């Protein structure tokens, strides 16, 4: 990061009028980015959606710039963002002026950014890549979007490898799952009284299906494959184990421990709750792989079979 900070202060303040120097610096900067990520004439891409940025990083072709890098590290996590990637600001409002100065070859967006598309096209060619707005399962669409991203950045082979690797990861994870694996309720706490529960249409649900696991949430879901429900709705679900995705909001763990309802939910009484790490449920294949691995780890952990009420 020192490279970026240094460039900003030196160029911005003292030598600002010597634009030749600046061009040199810019070339150096681009060179540094390119060198750090090995591809010679790979297109310079800005990816606004986290799932797409994540996929590009996993393909070994990290974007030149993406949005909300700090929050990405907290909520998406894998793979980490290389230092060379520039911050574009909020995902909902990536800084256009900044993008226009980055000499981009391509901007990838989702249909959510349709209203900005015309102006983005003034900066660089724009590709809309979509998982949730058209027909097909989240898994199939994610695979397809991975291939498309790979083709766009000249890494079709890497995309095939990522697809194959993810398939293998999911299969390996499936093999580690004990034979008598329970049905699962995969939830993420919004506050102490409400959860997101993942069901049909979500990437997580597709991964569970591929692992041969039953999703216990058969209720209706939104466009993105989750339902936002208050805790007592989970009481409807019998014969399932509870799996909780991190991060837990502040104070929720404590409040839940003392909740009569939570402790009497069938899915909680069935056995200890499975703790899963943060998985970006609207992410790409790396998120899917992370979820599969985490699920297998949790289900095959030794204490799961034994002590209830730990």
């Amino acid at each position, binding site marked *: 990061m020192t490279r970026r900070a240094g*460039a900003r202060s030196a*160029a*911005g*303040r003292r030598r*600002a*009028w010597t*634009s030749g120097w*600046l061009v040199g*610096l*810019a070339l150096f900067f681009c060179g540094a980015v390119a060198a750090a990520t090995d591809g010679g004439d790979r297109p310079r891409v800005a990816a606004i959606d986290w799932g797409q940025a994540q996929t590009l990083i996993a393909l070994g072709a990290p974007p030149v710039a993406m949005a909300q890098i700090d929050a990405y590290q907290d*909520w998406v996590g894998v793979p980490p963002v290389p230092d060379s990637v*520039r*911050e*574009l*600001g*909020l*995902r*909902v*409002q990536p*800084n*256009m*002026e*900044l993008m*226009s*100065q980055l000499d981009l070859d391509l901007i990838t967006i989702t*249909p*959510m950014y*349709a*209203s*900005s598309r015309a102006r983005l096209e003034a900066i660089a060619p724009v590709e809309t890549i979509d998982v949730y*707005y058209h027909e097909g399962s989240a898994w199939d669409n994610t695979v397809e979007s991975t291939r498309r991203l790979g083709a766009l950045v000249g890494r079709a082979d890497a995309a095939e490898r990522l697809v194959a690797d993810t398939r293998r990861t999911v299969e390996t994870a499936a093999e580690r799952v004990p034979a008598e694996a329970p049905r699962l309720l995969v939830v993420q*706490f*919004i*506050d102490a*009284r*409400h959860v*997101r529960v993942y069901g049909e249409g979500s990437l997580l649900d597709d991964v569970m299906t591929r692992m041969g696991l039953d999703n216990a949430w058969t209720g*209706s*879901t*939104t*466009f*993105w494959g*989750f*339902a*936002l*429900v208050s*805790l*007592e709705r989970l009481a409807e679900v019998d014969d399932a184990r509870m799996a909780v995705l991190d991060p837990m*909001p*502040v*104070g*929720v763990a404590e409040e839940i421990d*003392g*909740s*009569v*309802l*939570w402790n*009497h*939910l069938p899915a909680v009484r069935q056995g200890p709750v499975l703790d899963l790490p943060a998985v970006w449920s*609207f992410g790409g294949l790396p998120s899917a792989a992370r979820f599969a691995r985490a699920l297998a780890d949790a289900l095959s952990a030794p204490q799961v079979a034994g002590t209830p009420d730990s």
Partner: protein
Amino acid sequence: MPRPALTPGRLCGLFAVVLAVLAVLTLRESAPAGLAALWAPGESLSGILARHVWLPRLAASLLGGAGLALAGVLMQQTLRNPLAAPTTLGVVSGVHLFLLLGTLFAPALMLHARGVVGFVGGAAAMGLVFLLAWRRSLAPTVVVLAGLVVNLYLGSLAVVLLLFNQEALRGMMIWGAGSLAQNNWGGVGYLLPRLLIGGVAAAALARALALLDLDDTNARNLGVSLAWLRAASLGVAVFTSTAVVVELGVIGFIGLAAPSIVRLAGARRLLARLVWAPVLGALLLAVTDQLLQLWTADGAALIPTGATTAALGAPLLLWLIPRLNMHREAPTAVAGAPAPRRSATGGLLLGLLAAMAAMVVVALLVGQGVHGWNWPFELPWAETGAWRGARVLAAGAAGVMLAVAGTIVQRVSANPMASPEVLGISAGTAIGVLGLVLVWPTAGTPAMLGAGVVGALLTLALLVALNARSGFEPERVLLTGISVLFLFDAISKIVLAGSDPRTQQLLAWMSGTTYYVDLSLALTVSVLAALLLLVVRPLVVWLDLLPLGAPTARALGVNVTWSRLILLLVMAVLTAGATLVVGPLSFVGLLAPHMARLLGLARAREQFVGAALLGGLLMIAADWLGRMLLFPNEIPAGLVATLVGGSYFMWRLRRL
């Protein structure tokens, strides 16, 4: 006038029967055993669902409704204003902001002292309102004006936090929409003692408060210290409403509506309202909550009760408005507000023009980029000024339009609280756009523009339909607007709580950003602004005469109904144009006319020009600051305008 058959008792009885039926239905829904579940053995799931989920939720909704209605009665009586409520006086915003800050920066504190944090926030917001209005002995209109300002100000800070921490604060969005789901008795245990204290205190104050039905002089002659009485009464109101809000989340409308409804139903005396309003408030909230439980029993999206009461309440409020008996307020002196009157204004206006021009130059030429701050013309125009130009133009045009709209509406209504935001025109525009985006997620700018105009015109039609008979009596027009504002607020909260990934984009637009403006939109808006200014010019004479009051204006040869209607129409189009650019939450329409008047521009023509220049200046400066402060992140211009302008406004208000 209410039919004599309708008494508060009968109304509440009716609601109680409805509630009983609904409660049995929801119990059967949530615990299969139905009523028997209440006595089911302790460990059975059915028993737990009945006793630890269904029953506490019912109790919490009853308590919450009662507490808010009690607070509403106290506030309305104290301020002699049918619009006073915990939401309109800034209390709720204070709680909201402090809970957000606590969640982000002091999670440990939130763990152990959530209630205290919230109470401090609510009390601080109310205290700020007191402080601003203290010099005027907490005169009702000044308090409500200060409350409105504080509300907008704190609300903007909260939106900034939500915008930048959407994932971390998702739970707070549900709280902000008021979901009443409970899974233990903790909430009821928290509320009950606090509401009892509030109720006892209200009973103790009731006799003295009843004297406020007289005007100030008469009440004072009876030996009542008005300032302290008002402070004590508002203090109790803040205490009870804060307790409810902290525990249950933001619940709209009950505090405003329950007192009004019981008054319409015949509870004229304060004591009767103090008894019946909490009963009705409790039943209203509980019935709404039970209905929602039945409705969303199998749904995937959460529909929070607090926002729904507000959404259901808005139409009810609209229905009530023509029936509401507006007693003329005693202290209308504030409307003409004491402000310095300057004789030579030419120099001042030139100064404002120069300031605006200077700001335009700065906003176009100075900025940060890929290598930090860059000098003017250091980078190619296409990579800097081309982007900035559209935004500066649009921000300036929007600021001018809002300022002119604000001048018009403040003069027409002779009411310093009035602004296009308050009249609901911005909100109507926003509802139109919101609806479009939800139905057609990938809609482009032209479609959004169309939907916004339709929304604004529908709101205007509503304003006209409901107010034509009363000759556009200013208070009624304002009340209509505030209902629409409520509706918009409720709808947007329901959408935000739905946890839909699209919501962040809506949140950004609603907080007033020029981000989505392109050059063609900027030009369209500017041309629109210029045309409308030409239209307003000949109407300025009305703006000098209408504030003198309808009889005087009529005597001077003005057709009051028509002139008001025409001015409202112009104002609506001005507002719609501006809202499409900077969203519905800007402060400029309220602020710029005030600043112009405080600078000594007292006559309509001077105020009109001065406000337009100030509006443009403020919006361009806000837009630029918003783009620079957290680069490359952008803070929406509407929010910055609210924060910058609001600070100045509060400072001036205190010295009013």
